C-alpha cells in the first residue's frame, strides 16, 4: 500500500498545490512556488546521477568482461571522467579546461553529428517525397518554396520566391502550427490532470 499510495498521494498534493498557487497572488504562494522549483532542480540532479552511475556501470562491466567493443567503452568512461572531474574541480567559466573541452571537443562533434544529418535528410527526402498523393505534393511544394526562399539561388530564379517563402512560413504554416500548439496544450492539460488524479501512473513502474 505504502509503496504506491505514498507516491500517488505526494503526486496529488504537489500537483494541486502547484496548479492552485498560480491563481493565488500572495507572497507566501510565490515563496512556495520558487522553493518547489529549486527543489525539483535539486532532485533532478540526483536523477542525472542515476544516469551517470548507470552508464558508468554498463561500460565498466563491458570493459571488465571484455565484451565486444569494450575498447570504445574506455573512451566513453574516459570522456565522462575527464569532463566531469574537470568541471567539478576546475570550474566551468571561460578559460578553464572544462570550457576548452567544450569548445574544441564537445561542440565541434555535436555540430558535426547534426550536420551529418544533412546527407541523410536529403536521401530520405528523395525516397519519401515521391508525389503519390495530393497531400505529398502539397508537402513537397511547401518544402521547396521554403528551401529556395532561404538561399540566393531562389531569388536568382525569380524574385517572388523569397516573398512566397515568407508568406508560406507566416500564414499557412503559422495556422497549422497554431492548431498543433493548441492541440498540444489541451493534451498537456489532460495528461497533467490524469497524472495528478492518479489515472496515469506508469511512472511508478511495475511491482
Amino acid at each position, binding site marked *: 500500500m505504502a509503496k504506491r499510495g505514498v507516491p500517488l498521494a*505526494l503526486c496529488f498534493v504537489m500537483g494541486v498545490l502547484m496548479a492552485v498557487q498560480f491563481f493565488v497572488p500572495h507572497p507566501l504562494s510565490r515563496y512556495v512556488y520558487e522553493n518547489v522549483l529549486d527543489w525539483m532542480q535539486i532532485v533532478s540532479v540526483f536523477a542525472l546521477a542515476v544516469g551517470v552511475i548507470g552508464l558508468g556501470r554498463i561500460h565498466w562491466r563491458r570493459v571488465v568482461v571484455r565484451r565486444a567493443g569494450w575498447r570504445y567503452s574506455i573512451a566513453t568512461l574516459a570522456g565522462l571522467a575527464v569532463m566531469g572531474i574537470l568541471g567539478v574541480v576546475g570550474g566551468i567559466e571561460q578559460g578553464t579546461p572544462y570550457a576548452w573541452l567544450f569548445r574544441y571537443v564537445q561542440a565541434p*562533434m555535436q555540430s558535426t553529428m547534426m550536420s551529418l544529418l544533412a546527407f541523410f535528410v536529403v536521401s530520405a*527526402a528523395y525516397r519519401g517525397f515521391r508525389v503519390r498523393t495530393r497531400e505529398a505534393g502539397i508537402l513537397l511544394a511547401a518544402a521547396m518554396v521554403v528551401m529556395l526562399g*532561404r538561399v540566393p539561388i531562389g531569388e536568382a530564379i525569380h524574385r517572388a520566391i523569397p516573398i512566397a517563402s515568407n508568406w508560406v512560413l507566416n500564414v499557412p504554416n503559422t495556422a*497549422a502550427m497554431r492548431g498543433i500548439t493548441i492541440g498540444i496544450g489541451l493534451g*498537456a492539460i489532460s495528461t497533467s490532470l490524469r497524472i495528478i488524479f492518479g489515472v496515469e501512473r506508469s511512472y511508478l513502474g511495475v511491482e
Partner: protein
Amino acid sequence: MAMTTIGIWVAAILTLAIYSFLYRDNPIYKLAEHILVGVSLGYFVGLYWHTTLIPKLWVPLVEGGNVLVLVPLAMGLLMLTRFSLRWSWLSRVPMAFVIGAGAGVSIPTAVDARVYRQIEATMIPLTSLSSVILVVGVAATLVYFLFSVRHEGALGKVATLGTWFLMVGFGATFGYTVMARISLLIGRMQFLLGDWLHLLAD
C-alpha cells in the same frame, strides 16, 4: 595560443572522424561517437554541480543555515535506491514529487501559453486574404484533430482542408530543418578549410 592551435587540431581530427561515417560505419567513427557520449554526460555533471548543487543546496545549507533544503537532498538520495532491488520502490517518492509538481505547474502554463495566447493571436480583423487564410487554417487544423467525431460530410471536407494546412506546415518545417542542417555543414566546412587548413580567404 598553443592551446588554441591544439584545440583546432583536436576539433578537426574529431570532425573528420565523425564524417568518416559517410563512407561506412568504422572504428574511428565509433571511437568519436563514444567519446561524444562520455563528454556530453560529463558536461552536465560539471554544469549541474556549479549551477544547481552549489548555489541551491550547498550554499543555502552550509552558509545560510536553511535546513529546508535537506528535504530535496533526502528525496534526491532516495533516487539512488534505484540500484537496490529491495529498496528501489523508494525512488518513486522523488519521482512522484517531480512529476506531480511538474504536472501542476504545466496546467496554468499550458492554458495560458498554448491555448489562451494562441486563440487570442488568431482573433484578428479579417481585413486581408492572408488573415482569412490564417483563421480558416487554424480552425480547419483543429477540426482535423477532432477524433471523437467521424470525419464525414461538411466536417470531413473541413478536416481534409486541415490536412492540407498540416502538410504545408510539415513541408515548411522540413525545409527549415534541411536548411539548418546545411548551415551546420557549411559551418563545419568553413572550420576545416578556414580555421584549420587556412585555405579560405579572410
